[in-house]
């Protein structure tokens, strides 16, 4: 009995204690990435800053859309992507996640 009271007293003096004692683990989600031409370029250029889920959440889009999106990564977020890979990744995205329209 005595022990219990002491424990409670100690606890209430430790004013800040985390709800989670151990580091949290953010799970990995296995996104299905379509294989094919350009896949390597996507792996090399698009997955260092965010998941594949972030990309395909846009749904099927035009070639112009994907091209602008890749350029946005380069211009605003300073993604180090070569001119050549901008084209390769755009083509890949349009082929697998495109809506068939150029614009």
């Amino acid at each position: 009995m005595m022990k219990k009271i002491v424990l409670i007293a100690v606890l209430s003096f430790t004013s800040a204690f985390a709800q989670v004692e151990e580091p949290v683990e953010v799970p990995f989600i296995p996104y299905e990435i379509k294989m094919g031409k350009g896949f390597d370029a996507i792996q090399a250029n698009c997955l260092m800053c965010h998941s594949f889920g972030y990309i395909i959440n846009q749904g099927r889009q035009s070639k112009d859309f994907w091209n602008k999106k890749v350029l946005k990564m380069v211009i605003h977020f300073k993604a180090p992507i070569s001119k050549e890979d901008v084209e390769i990744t755009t083509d890949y995205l349009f082929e697998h996640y495109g809506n068939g329209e150029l614009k």
Partner: protein
Amino acid sequence: MQRRDFLKASLAASAVALGTSASAGVTGQPIDSRKVSKIAFPEKRPLITYSDRPPLLETPRDSFTKAITPNDEFFVRWHMPEIPTHIDPETYTIKINGLVNQELSISLNELKKDFEQVEVTAVLQCGGNSRSAYKPIAGGIQWGSGAMGCAKWKGVRLSDILNRAGLKKGAHWIGFNGSETAAYYETPNFVREMRIDELDDHVIVAYEMNGEDLPYLNGYPVRLVIPGHYSDSWVKMLSNITVTAEYESLFFMDVAYRVPDNDCECETPDNKFKATKPITTMNVKSVIGYPTNDTVVYHNSHVVVRGVAFDDGHGIKDVVISVDGGKTWKTAILDKDAGRYAFRAFRFAFKPTKYGKVSIMAKAINRLGAEQPFAQDIKWNHGGYKYNGIDVVTMEVV
């Protein structure tokens, strides 16, 4: 035909033409078909999951029958993939520096003991909540209606902290840093700035959410709470507050979270409006939590429609419901008021009289008389921000 009439007629004709072409930008109901994932993130139950890095989780619609969103159902939105996964509450400090008389470094213990403790119940909503309503697609996560929630936040007034540090003459801006970092060193970090005169006493540095520690994914151990404002400036894992004289140009201030600076806050995809302004305060909105688009009931069921309504702090005056496509509206019952920044839960009892698909619409009206527009009357903007169309769910009566 008079010239004036001709003009009117051709305007009407072009409006019709525009209305049918997605290139002009059209708005409908946000996507509502996504299911929760089987994977549960730390301290969360399974939610609609867009991305693991950064974590992006949406609250399913059926949570919005409750005026308080439970912590484990609360949506999650980070910008950067690297977020601390362990924080020691004994050593964590918030630093206050820049144009202050005395730089401060406040520990969590000090925050909880040395300042007046205050509470506010407030809605946290992403500016891009419901973005999937906009066509053509607007940049960013294609949220349904669940990038929002309401919690009771406990913490310390930002103004009390700033007073303790003492503002120097010429202090006009405050920058807030969280602890998330980009994966690539040149990517701009997520830093927010606010004008000092934009901040009132309702802004708090919060360490508690619904009576518990903040969940990691909602910004443990402390985050900024700015009632009435969209969540872009509610910085999570707040680590640094810097007072400055001038605005510093930053990507997440200058480019993201902005709408056209015109009356309708609108534009067309081919003709974007040059001048933009920050999204700041929330417009009036409501979301139906029950029924959902999956609900099937027998025709003689007594259905109680439930949902939540909110605005930027003027308060909700009425929520009205239509079951005939918006021709007639009836007033819903409002639950008790948990404060002007909170969700106001509403309910409305009705008995379906016909079989098949029955659509239910909810429209909130605030104390200023501002009301939600029909989805199709909302004009497009490139970031897909501030959608607040009348919510519609369609259930099946068998």
